[in-house]
């Protein structure tokens, strides 16, 4: 079980004052589970991923606890699939990049055809450079690099951003499949209607604060407690059907 307790992030300004970007986040993630993290732009969703992965700049002050099975989280136990496909090295073939991440985590060289097939990528993708991949393939390639580390817990940051609905569904089904294989998966997304199809619990952020953690059924059943959660769901589930002709 991965547990995040009272996670807060604040940035020191030049004049010595501080700006709080995230406060008091609580998360739990079990193996075999998919959870979601949603919120508007600037709510601090990706900041959570950066704080958990130790990617924040020098003027950031992070407080709170991150544990795995009651122990302090060690390197290699949590992996991140970033949102931008520019997170792939443009000069290196995909197969070499996957091996690179395995080496960094001290893992043996992965069986590339199997690692690619697991994500629905053809074997030939190992020889491809990132610019030769489609958007959906690149997103899956990012997940492949994260999985090569052998970490049991995975954060997928906006895995469906910029993808067509069909590809987005395939990526989310893939993440759900990873959870079924025993990974704990945290999906950061704007795409709430798709997210509730695979995530058991969804934490909603508003301006750096956690407003509630709801079950997927709470969205469709109208059981959301916080007004922001209801507004977010209403905005995202609106289809435009009630527009006057």
């Amino acid at each position, binding site marked *: 079980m991965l547990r995040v307790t009272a996670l807060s992030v604040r940035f020191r300004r030049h004049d010595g004052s501080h700006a709080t970007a995230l406060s008091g986040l609580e998360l739990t993630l079990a193996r075999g589970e998919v959870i979601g993290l949603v919120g508007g732009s600037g709510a601090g969703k990706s900041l959570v991923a950066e704080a958990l992965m130790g*990617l924040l700049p020098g003027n950031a002050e992070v407080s709170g606890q991150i544990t795995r099975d009651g122990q302090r989280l060690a*390197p290699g136990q949590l992996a991140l699939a970033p949102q931008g496909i520019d*997170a792939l090295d443009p*000069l290196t073939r995909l197969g070499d990049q996957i091996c*690179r*991440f395995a080496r960094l*985590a001290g893992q043996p060289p992965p069986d590339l055809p199997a690692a690619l097939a697991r994500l629905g990528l053809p074997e030939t993708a190992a020889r491809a450079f990132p*610019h030769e991949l489609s958007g959906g393939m690149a997103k899956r390639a990012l997940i492949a690099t*994260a999985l090569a580390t052998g970490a049991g817990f995975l954060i997928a940051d906006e895995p469906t951003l910029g993808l067509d609905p069909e590809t987005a569904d395939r990526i989310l089904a893939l993440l759900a499949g990873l959870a079924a294989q025993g990974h704990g998966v945290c999906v950061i997304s704007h795409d709430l209607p798709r997210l509730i199809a695979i995530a058991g619990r969804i934490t909603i952020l508003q301006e750096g604060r956690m407003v509630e953690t709801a079950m997927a059924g709470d969205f469709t059943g109208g059981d959301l407690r916080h007004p922001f959660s209801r507004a977010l769901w209403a905005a995202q589930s609106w289809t435009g059907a009630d527009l006057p002709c």
Partner: protein
Amino acid sequence: MDLQLMRRNWLARLLLERLIRLIWLVPLAMAGLFTLVSLAPVDPVQAYVGARVAQVGPEQRAAIAEAWGLNAPAPERFWLWLSHLAAGDFGTSITYNAPVLDLIAQRAGASLALIGTAFFLALALGFSLGLLAAAMRGRWPDRLIRGLAVVLSASPGFWIAILLISVFAVGLGWLPACCATPPGLTAAETSLGARLTHLILPAVTVSVVGISALILHSRARAVAFLESPAARHLAAHGASRLRLAFRYGARHALGPALTVHLAGAGELVGGSVLAETIFAWPGLGQATVRAATGADAPLLLGIALATLLFVFCGNLLADIAARLADPRLREMR
């Protein structure tokens, strides 16, 4: 064009394009240089006669000019030179009184040894210092390396040469300050170690031309990589800054560094002319200075042609290196 086909053919396409460029570039460059040499205020006969001016009368001067074809109009001389060149005859040097092609063949080895050593020395030092500065960005090693690059870029080559001679040759007596071999010995009579010892100071002098640009360029490209999402992705999974810079960032910096360095082959040649003059290095640079001061048009044109081909090859290698380092460039037209 089919993507797979383009991938395979990028090198052939590049070579063909550059060959076409070479076909019009050589005559154009030669015509320009011939014009400059023709307009030079140095009288080749006077330069040839030199101190024997009292012993050579006007008739003899006219005979020399006639023998060298100097009385013909410039376009006719240029055409004559081109037609001889096409037949493999580069003409005869009036300074050395020897066939130009033989002279170039004799001296090119020494120049290539000097330029090649300087090239790799500058590349190894400039590239690794640039990567180190990027990895240590904002800290004292970075400031020190950048300071060194600025000082080197502001230092004239001749001044560096004088400084090296005064410290390592005159002051410490560690290294020779002259020539490619010890006085009185031929290259065949000199050991490899002794020849390498003679190479050090001229090579360091020539390499200084490229080191500062390489340091700053490699640093900038490595910093750009270290700040990229790709590097952050690697850092998130445990890659240190040194590992990021030297292992993963090196390729990002090496392509552009090689491009800059190879495209600057002309500067290396220019630096070698200076170094060969200062260190009495028996290469083409030294011959260039003698040919220029003696209005030795055949030798000057021959060396210019050799230099043009050298710089052209440098630029071609730069283009190939850039495409090898960055696969995206292979698909660009």
